[in-house]
């Protein structure tokens, strides 16, 4: 593509410093375009763990994420701190996310089957049925309501229980424990710990049961790996299950909320969506993943990142030398809005078809739960707006700004 795409429409100079403090979402996008036009990456000092290169250009991000010379081993082994905005809990550093090939490939393959596009396709019908049931309950209780616990969190937890293999009778317990791992819960430390412990105990017993009597679910698959050299200990399976629970539905719930808000704040796009819900849902969901967080707030700050990597040798990316030992990460907001990949990145467009966003990462570490998350978002939004096309906001949504994922904790709506 020609470099003219980089030009902004105004002649005012754009501030290309990075990171940058809160500005309007449109101004943030203007800056992302200018920054990416100026350079492929910026070196910045993180609150924890020192310096890191932050990639701004979509193509450069793909190049880095597709290059096996970037690894996570030094973080996993504790040889170096992860340069990031917050401390990563040790438990997360022991998971798939921080593994490199070949062990990563092996573990990933085991989980993949259970969460594959094929398995997820089979789960869609039950997701639709459950979404309807949640809305029936909501309608019965009457409006207004907080959509977060009633719908956005309840749906992914149910799907996760289904995937993992939690029997229907145990689902209320499972939902209570899992929800406790969420920031939304805002629980005292002690209570949270108790819930996590109960969840771990419950899962351990379930793993044991599935080892003896396998069914068609994730725990059974993991407990009964087909090859001996692939078999996992109960502890390893538990870690994977806990990762899926904590990483899985929190993000999905948050993106469902971002989707509801994006559509409510862009009535023209909601109209396009409602015209052909099933046809538009797939591209709408991609657009929410790309741009949804920009629709959530009045202000956006520049500075964010996916989990970093370390260069095992000197590597040149897009003309910039990344030295051996340097840490590097992708700022998804930056690469999702830069001018070459998105000439009109400030627009929320539910029909956008060429949408190479990197919210769910790319390459080896692209989100394992992506098919499930996409399906849940499609179902959640389609069912919600088809059933309640008159949905309206009943006040300002509340975010928990103290949490890393800044989840929406209150989304008051009526219908």
């Amino acid at each position: 593509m020609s470099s003219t795409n980089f030009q902004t429409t105004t002649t005012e100079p754009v501030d290309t410093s990075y990171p940058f403090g809160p500005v309007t979402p449109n101004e943030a996008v203007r800056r992302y375009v200018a920054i990416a036009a100026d350079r492929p990456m910026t070196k910045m000092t993180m609150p924890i763990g020192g310096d890191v290169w932050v990639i701004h250009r979509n193509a450069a991000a793909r190049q880095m994420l597709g290059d096996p010379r970037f690894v996570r081993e030094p973080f996993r082994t504790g040889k170096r701190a992860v340069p990031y905005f917050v401390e990563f809990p040790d438990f997360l550093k022991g998971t798939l996310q921080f593994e490199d090939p070949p062990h990563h490939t092996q573990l990933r393959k085991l989980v993949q089957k259970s969460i594959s596009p094929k398995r997820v396709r089979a789960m869609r019908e039950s997701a639709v049925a459950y979404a309807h049931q949640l809305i029936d309950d909501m309608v019965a209780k009457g409006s207004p309501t907080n959509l977060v616990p009633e719908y956005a969190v309840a749906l992914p937890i149910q799907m996760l229980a289904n995937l993992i293999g939690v029997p229907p009778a145990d689902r209320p317990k499972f939902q209570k424990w899992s929800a406790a791992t969420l920031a939304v819960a805002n629980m005292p430390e002690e209570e949270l710990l108790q819930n996590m412990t109960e969840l771990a105990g419950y899962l351990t017993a379930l793993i044991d049961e599935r080892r003896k009597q396998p069914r068609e679910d994730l725990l059974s698959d993991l407990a009964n790996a087909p090859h001996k050299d692939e078999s996992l200990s109960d502890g390893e399976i538990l870690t994977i299950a806990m990762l899926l629970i904590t990483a899985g539905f929190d993000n999905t719930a948050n993106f469902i909320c971002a989707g509801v808000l994006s559509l409510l704040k862009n009535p023209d796009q909601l109209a396009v969506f409602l015209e052909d819900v099933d046809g538009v849902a797939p591209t709408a969901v991609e657009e929410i993943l790309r741009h949804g967080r920009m629709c959530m707030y009045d202000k956006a700050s520049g500075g964010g990142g996916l989990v970093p990597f370390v260069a095992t040798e000197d590597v040149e990316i897009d003309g910039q030398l990344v030295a051996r030992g340097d840490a590097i990460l992708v700022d998804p907001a930056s690469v999702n809005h830069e001018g070459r990949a998105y000439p009109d990145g400030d627009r929320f467009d539910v029909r956008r078809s060429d949408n190479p966003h990197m919210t769910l990462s790319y390459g080896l570490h692209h989100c394992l739960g992506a098919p499930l998350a996409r399906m849940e978002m499609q179902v959640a939004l389609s069912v919600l707006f088809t059933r309640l096309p008159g949905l309206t906001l009943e006040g300002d949504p509340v975010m928990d700004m103290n949490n890393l994922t800044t989840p929406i904790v209150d989304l008051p709506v009526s219908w």
Partner: protein
Amino acid sequence: MPKVFYVQPDGSERVVDGAAGDSVMSTAVRNGVRGIVGQCGGSLSCATCHVYLAADDRQYFDGPGEDEDEMLDCTASDREDTSRLSCQLVLREGVDVHVTVPDEQT
């Protein structure tokens, strides 16, 4: 220059000029061919680049390796004898490739 013929489930066809060494997946993604997603960028871990390879073209490629074979069991649309992951189909000079995109990819 090798050409790739992408046939959509509705029968419509799109022809794209490829480059030797590129995969059928990356050629599709770069040219915005509908239905080939390629979320993992060809690292055999997403199964969103599934295609049906024309029977006549099978002679130009080795069969699926073990990893590809396993991933082919994970595709959203049903696996058939001609099923391949397009990130594993590498273009060669002088060889045109014909593939059909499945109904559902994610």
